């Protein structure tokens, strides 16, 4: 039942900005179906790390071994550019904190979802539209809004549309940067429920960066705590949050405001 090969093996990822440390010597394995949270305060290096893993930034050193569908484990950093881009369009997905960074605001909702399908070769208009409609419904957007532009959507709807656009190609690995960041709490709850359901149904693996400990508790199986570019503690989510070992994690957990 438990898989033998990690979906992604991250080894010794380091990225510096001049003399400053972005992230330093980060290693972990992500297993199929697993959701990992990366927490830490602003400037802790969590977003730098995510960008390095997702291919938006090139790390100074390290390797990223991804278990590809066709050829098994390969180092993504050593792949030719076209191959890496294909991976980003098919097997990988990235949900930005701000939907504007992940959507095309001047293109209809259906077009936003369909574009990713066309990028992997879909050409039949009827099929693309049918799939787009299906995905809008799965993320609870009324199919009647398919020809509206994301600009006319609320923040929560835009975020759900971004998720639909990302998941339509049935990726295996999804990166999320503060996915519930700019949303008010009631919208956030609905999005969390949606994400949990999709992760479960599609067997997705995910890496989620957030500073919100309540969000990671509900979404992540495991977490890594970062401070000053380094991982200070990692483990099972409820273990790290209920019985933190490192001074910084203890401070972080005890600083959460109770409602």
């Amino acid at each position, binding site marked *: 039942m438990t898989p033998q090969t990690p979906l992604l093996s991250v080894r010794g990822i380091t990225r510096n900005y001049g003399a400053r440390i972005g992230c330093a010597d980060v290693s972990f394995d992500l297993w199929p179906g697993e959701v990992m949270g990366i927490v830490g305060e602003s400037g802790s290096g969590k977003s730098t790390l995510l960008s390095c893993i997702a291919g938006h930034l090139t790390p100074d050193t390290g390797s990223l071994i991804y278990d590809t569908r066709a050829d098994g484990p390969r180092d993504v950093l050593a792949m030719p550019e076209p191959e890496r881009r294909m991976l980003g369009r098919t097997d990988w997905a990235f949900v930005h904190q701000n939907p504007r960074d992940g959507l095309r605001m001047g293109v209809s909702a259906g077009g936003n979802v369909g574009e990713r399908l066309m990028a992997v070769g879909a050409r039949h208009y009827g099929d693309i539209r049918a799939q787009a409609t299906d995905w809008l419904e799965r993320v609870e957007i009324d199919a009647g809004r398919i020809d509206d532009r994301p600009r006319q959507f609320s923040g929560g709807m835009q975020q759900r549309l971004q998720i639909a656009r990302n998941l339509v190609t049935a990726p295996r690995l999804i990166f999320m940067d503060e996915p519930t960041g700019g949303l008010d709490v009631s919208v956030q709850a609905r999005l969390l429920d949606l994400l949990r359901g999709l992760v479960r149904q599609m067997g997705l693996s995910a890496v989620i960066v957030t500073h919100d400990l309540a969000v990671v508790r509900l979404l992540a199986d495991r977490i890594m705590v970062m401070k000053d570019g380094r991982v200070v503690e990692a483990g099972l989510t*409820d273990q790290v949050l209920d019985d933190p070992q490192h001074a910084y994690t203890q401070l972080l957990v005890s600083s959460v405001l109770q409602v």
Partner: protein
Amino acid sequence: MIVVENVSKNFTLHNQGGIVLPVITGASLAVAAGQCVGLAGSSGAGKSTLMRMIWGNYRTDSGRILVGGTDIARAEPRQIIALRRTTLGHVSQFLRVVPRVPAIDVVAEPLLTQGTAPDVARARAAALLTRLNIPEHLWSLSPTTFSGGEQQRVNIARGFIHPWPALLLDEPTASLDAGNREVVLTLIEEAKARGAAILGIFHDEGARTRVCDRLVDVSRFAVAA
């Protein structure tokens, strides 16, 4: 099924001058299939701490905790996750859920994560909620709006929806009225009858004498202050 061997646990409070609080030392116990063992001892003796070490949300400093052959004190997160999915169940005193998720889905969730078809999972959840006297008009509401006793029963339904071979119960009858207490005790007896190994904390003495085969006094393992 559940074996605890010579475990110890300290808390280090880095933000309070690095003070080290030893809480448990040399704790050992075993629960066989079909048995229910109660943890006894006064408040602060370490009952909940020991139970959390077995659930895996508290770290164990030394010793072994075997559940179904996995050593929780040393297991990787994914092994503990797999164990919790199929082997080790837990009824805590706290209900932690995504807000706005209907009670019936909260109860069905452990089955859904195992890949049970949604309609089958919901039907089982409905049967348990009925048994635990949660009125049907509440099923579609989020349990965050429920009373303490209703939340407790949702937690219990969630803890009994899958026949976990090992089950941890943290005060399952607290804040329940006589009728519902009876339902919960019957559920525990049924779980024992199907061969579950149960470790529980019961402050309710009547409940303890009725379902527990043995008591383990945790104060024996407490570190003298």
